[in-house]
């Protein structure tokens, strides 16, 4: 790359002008559109080393050759990749904005979820006046983590401070050419998280709390890398039950987990992006690639509660490479109105005595479509592999759909595979029974849905299980007339 950043900026400004839009080109915004220059510009803005820039360019070139996948059971208008702005620095608090400027409907939702006023302000980019508590809590956390040698920071910072670790692991689980959206993410990711737990260390806290205090908004192209070294343990939570009305329509995240020998990673997600309105207008496209690798005796457990987004396409998977390794997937996916979700997992058994468990709970309401898609693959050398899958669907009303696409590939005779699936409908008799006991219909539905989802809710860290439960109720509000 011959030209400097300054030259690049100038070039971009001219281009911007050429296209005829006016943008107040602050130093932290790039114009809409995607080409190799933009990819390089993102890398430069982050002061990345050359290897990282080259990595991105490689991904970008691969992406250009790729086709957007169409096999999922979802229908949507394909995004215009030239109409997206690929870099904008996190929004700063607007000093003139108060909570009175925020959509009252959203505030009502926050209230129902029991989100504190400070947190509401943070979510809406309103300046927070009382920060003493959260700052001191965060400082305590940082100190505890540092004492244990745990690295937990934005991935952009990790690229600067721990290039060897990042270089060694990034793209090893989800290669940059893995799929269309993973390639796009690899080219243009702006931030995300990096976490490294040293050998034999048990992370003393859920990384969720820390995360929520420090991470204001999540980016459009997030990249997460979690490495648990031998014999270590970490529980990580991403996302937030608070609804996010992000204006970015396309979200394409990549998450890579690496559990070395005897390590365990528990990764929980609560996804509540804007699902679009009741008529199916707007809403986020959530196209995510999540995958983890287990070495010998390692364990990875994915737990997800998916209630948001207009279109979801997501399969958190485990590659059970090591002998005696364990993969788990616990999922609740709720779709309402016109939402579409195609989600599930892949359990790839390579090592001996590997075990996997899949519990998927799909809840469809309104005119939504909810699909489970899962692959259980037992390779020829995976002696005595075991899998148990359970896919339950709950339907509300007559206009929604639930679909199950289980794929099973077995190349070793010693494998034991069990698959159970049920589909049920919330019956009028159940509702009347609850009504007769004094429980009104909305509350009755919440109770039934929570009962249905219990096995998965129980897998969430305590503090989030309660919030997730409320979130399920709110997501289905008004779904039965």
């Amino acid at each position, binding site marked *: 790359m011959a030209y400097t950043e300054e030259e690049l900026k100038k070039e971009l400004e001219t281009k911007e002008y050429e296209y005829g839009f006016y943008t107040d080109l602050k130093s932290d915004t790039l114009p809409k559109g995607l080409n190799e220059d933009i990819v390089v510009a993102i890398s430069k803005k982050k002061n990345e080393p050359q290897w990282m820039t080259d990595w991105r360019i490689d991904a970008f070139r691969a992406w250009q050759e790729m086709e957007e996948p169409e096999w999922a059971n979802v229908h949507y208008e394909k995004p215009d990749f030239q109409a997206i702005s690929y870099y904008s620095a996190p929004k700063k608090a607007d000093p003139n904005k108060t909570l009175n400027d925020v959509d009252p409907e959203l505030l009502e939702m926050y209230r129902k979820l029991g989100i504190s006023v400070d947190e509401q302000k943070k979510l809406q980019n309103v300046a927070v006046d009382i920060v003493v508590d959260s700052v001191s809590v965060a400082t305590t956390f940082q100190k505890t983590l540092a004492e244990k040698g745990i690295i937990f920071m934005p991935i952009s910072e990790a690229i600067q401070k721990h290039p060897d670790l990042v270089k060694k692991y990034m793209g090893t689980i989800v290669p940059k050419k893995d799929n269309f959206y993973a390639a796009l993410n690899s080219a243009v990711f702006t931030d995300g998280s990096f976490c490294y737990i040293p050998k034999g260390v048990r992370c003393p806290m859920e990384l969720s709390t820390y995360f929520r205090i420090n991470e204001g908004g999540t980016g459009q192209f997030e990249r997460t890398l979690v490495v648990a070294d031998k014999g270590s343990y970490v529980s990580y939570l991403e996302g937030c039950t608070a609804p996010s009305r992000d204006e970015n329509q396309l979200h394409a995240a990549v998450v890579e987990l690496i559990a070395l020998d005897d390590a365990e990673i528990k990764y929980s997600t609560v996804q509540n992006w804007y699902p679009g309105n009741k008529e199916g207008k707007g809403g986020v496209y959530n196209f995510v690639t999540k995958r983890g690798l287990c070495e010998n005796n390692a364990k990875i457990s994915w737990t997800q509660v998916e209630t948001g987004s207009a279109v979801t396409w997501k399969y958190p998977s485990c590659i059970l490479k090591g002998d005696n390794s364990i993969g788990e997937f616990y999922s609740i996916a709720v779709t309402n109105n016109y939402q579409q979700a195609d989600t599930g997992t892949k359990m790839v058994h390579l090592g001996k005595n590997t075990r996997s468990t899949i519990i998927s709970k799909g809840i469809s309401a309104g005119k939504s479509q909810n699909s489970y898609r899962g692959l259980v693959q037992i390779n020829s050398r995976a002696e005595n592999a075991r899998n148990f899958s359970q896919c339950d669907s709950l339907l509300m009303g007559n206009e929604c759909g639930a679909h199950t696409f289980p794929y099973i590939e077995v190349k070793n005779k010693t494998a034991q595979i069990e698959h159970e699936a049920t589909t049920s409908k919330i*019956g*009028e*008799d*159940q509702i*009347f*029974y*609850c*009504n*007769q*006991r*004094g*429980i*009104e*219909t909305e*509350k009755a539905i919440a*109770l*039934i849905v*929570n*009962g*249905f*989802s*219990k*096995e998965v809710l129980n897998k969430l860290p305590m503090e989030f299980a309660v919030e997730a439960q409320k979130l399920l109720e709110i997501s289905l509000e008004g779904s039965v007339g």
Partner: protein
Amino acid sequence: MLKINDLHASVDDKEILRGINLTVNAGEVHAIMGPNGSGKSTLASVIAGKEEFEVTKGSVELDGEDLEDDAPEERAHKGIFLSFQYPVEIPGVSVTNFMKTAINESRKARGLEDMPANEMLKLIREKSELLEIDRKFLSRSLNEGFSGGEKKRNEIFQMAMLEPKLAILDETDSGLDIDALRIVANGVNKLKSKDNAVIVITHYQRLLEHIVPDFVHVLHNGKIVKSGGKELAHELEEKGYDWLKQEQAV
């Protein structure tokens, strides 16, 4: 307490109740008997406010108030309880959780705060002892995998927890063995007071040996065709329903 006036009700345009008149006062036990298909369960559902039944004529009043516009949950808040003939299963929801929700919803309707946990525990302990229920049972999912007897006992446990003004027991004796029948009947008797009332819907006289009614009514073709004291139940047990049907025909 309960006053039913010339009640007519249909489902899918088929008339099932054809002019029921019934008055139940506080402190009374009424038994409603009758052959299959006579409308006994429909009457129970209509009092509880089940929407699939359409009231075409007449009224149901509780303490002088017409219930016509009240949703089933509002009727429950006013003190109507129905022990179901076929209680439904709600997987993943424990009996305790269900009761806690029901009690707190009723309290909310009356403008009260949630019941404090210690009070709730005390109440659960007291009522489960009354009905000889093992408390382990209360952490199981509501009615899921319950035997017929367990389901019925659970209904009466809920009744004890909710302390209704008017309890309607719809075929509570079906599926009960003799011991369970005794326990359930004892429970109902202990809960009886001068302020509440019970309507027992049954096929057989068996339950009425344990829960002694003040009045017995025979329902046939959607109408009460005969009313009397507890001796009427004995007569029915001996003679069956045919003689009443014939009497009707004449």
